[in-house]
């Protein structure tokens, strides 16, 4: 039994079909544009967050060889022979806050990632070392850490 209209697209498109297809096409196109346009709304252009830059005090607040914690910002500020550096305690695996152990290393409670005192990854699933954050000096001499600005690992601010 032959099915009517089967294989009609093999033939040249007739005027009636063309107009129908054009109507359908423009309907689909406008709908898609409307939906895609609406989807722009949930993508925030400005993140509703506090200033990412925080003042941490003058350099002499940090004794050489010390590590100072800013628990509210999950931040550790270290000072060694060559300068000051700030490490984010947020695990690079899935965002838990790592805990600094007595030997200076960082352990993540969520999936067992381990980092050395200088942030390099030593074990667990973390794909990379802890983030180094930008430390800069204000004209007043006070230090500022920018939590959004990452700098290459091991970079230090000479003091």
């Amino acid at each position, binding site marked *: 039994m032959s099915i009517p209209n089967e294989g009609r697209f093999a033939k040249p498109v007739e005027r009636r079909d063309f107009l129908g297809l054009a109507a359908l096409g423009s309907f689909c196109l406008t709908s898609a544009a409307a939906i895609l346009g609406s989807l722009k709304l949930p993508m925030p252009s400005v993140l509703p967050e506090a200033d990412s830059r925080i003042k941490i005090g003058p350099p002499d607040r940090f004794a050489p060889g010390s590590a100072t914690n800013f628990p509210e910002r999950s931040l550790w500020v270290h000072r060694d022979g060559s300068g000051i550096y700030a490490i984010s305690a947020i695990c690079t*695996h*899935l965002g838990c806050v790592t805990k600094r152990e007595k030997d200076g290393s960082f352990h993540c*409670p969520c999936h067992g990632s381990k980092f050395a005192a200088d942030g390099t990854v030593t074990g667990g699933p973390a794909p990379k070392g802890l983030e180094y954050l930008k430390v800069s000096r204000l004209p007043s001499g006070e230090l500022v850490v920018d939590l959004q600005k990452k700098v290459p690992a091991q970079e230090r601010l000479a003091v």
Partner: protein
Amino acid sequence: MNGFKTFLQNLRELPQTVRYSLIRHGTPSSDRARSQAVFSNFFLHIQATRVHKHTLKFATTLGLGIIAMAMFLILCISGVLLMVYYKPATDQAYDSLKDIIFVVPTGRMMRNIHRWAAHGMVLVVLLHMARVFFTGSYKGPRQFNWALGMVLLILTLALSFTGYLLPWDQLAYWAITIGANIAQSPREITDALGITEQFDPGGMQKTLLLGASSVGQEALIRFYVLHVAVLPVALLLALGVHFWRIRKDGGLARPDDVNEKLGADRREHGREIFPALQQADAKPTRTYGLMAMVRGKSPAVDRGPEHTVPAWPNLFYAEMAVAMFSTAVIVALAYFLDAPLKERANPSVPENPAKAPWYFLGLQEMVSYSAFMGGVGIPSIVVIGLGLIPYLDREERPNDVGVWFGGPEGRKVCLLSLLFSVLSCVAILAFTVKYGWLRNWIPSISQLWITAFNPGTLFVGLYAAWSLLILKRTNSTRMAALALFTCFIVSFFILTYFATFLRGPNWDFYWSQSDWPVH
């Protein structure tokens, strides 16, 4: 005066006329009338008017689909009630939970019901999937309904995940932080390739989900909207199609020889059920009204009504019994067990260990090998693989559809696969716990190696190889599918058990919770 009389008469007959406008027939007193009632009632017509006896057997379905449906209804009702008091704001959510538990009349009970029904729904949906798979019910013409089932599974899990944040306790906060970072984990790849600056799908996903760079007010309101509006509506829509397809696909799957096995059809109440069919020249020609106009053929056509019974009352009683049983179990659970509520969310101190709900713990074990593979890669492979099963296994075996584990040969394959997957899963887990993984041996190794080659991908590779081996041995795609699915379900439960009971603080291995260090 005539008009007044007519009005009075209309008033007198109001109950009857309203009733007739609502239901076009009286209380149906015969099977035929009841079938007509099922057919013409909006709420009942989702059911067929007659069901096969095999469908009604407990062993055919274990009632799992109806239990899942009952759980969903319980969740809708208890959820709407909880919405009356719940406030989706970071500074009020936790307090409103405390109010619901300690002040609101029946609030604690309602929250318990909502929580246990949610866990129950996930469990039952998984079991329902296993039932459909092992009875071969995904085979044509039911392929699409299986794929739709995968959509429903994902929606169920998404509902659980979004609901998890709402109490705004420590567990909620950290589970969602981990979940949102899993959404960001494509960065594991883009970072390793050094292209995150230009192309960052992971970061985009996380920002879209949270509306911010960390879990906060924006995330809470987004999850709330998804949980109470977007996802339930989507699930209801998919559920409607899922049910509708059951009818359009010819009812529940049943074995080819089921009618022969059931023997001669019994007469109902001593009468012939289908007088029209008993005439000498009559053929079973059940059809639908529209069939004359639309092309194609319904799977139900040309199948006789032998061994079917009226849906009202046979199927309806069974469904009501299952729904009552499910409700009773949930109410009993809610009465005896309180849903946990931890301390208020604290963004600077994570829970240790921070564990997701049980059905995500298998995933959590896998993200502890690689965030991207365990959280995005392998779940995608599994979901796409499961969804494609009916399209890749189109084999028509005798006595397969509607038969548990595909008959004797299939049972053997399932048992072998059970053995294989238990042994390999336990062996790989034990090895990983004892010796660690690549990073412990070569600290400077590139992340791409670990992403591509970790215990999680090893599971996938091993099971795929096993399934191919079965395919080669048996020359049957159904046997290969049985092998693969058995491995999947076994490893899912082993990983879930492992992560639930044997992982402790810092995700370290402990034989028992009593060995956890005090901190």
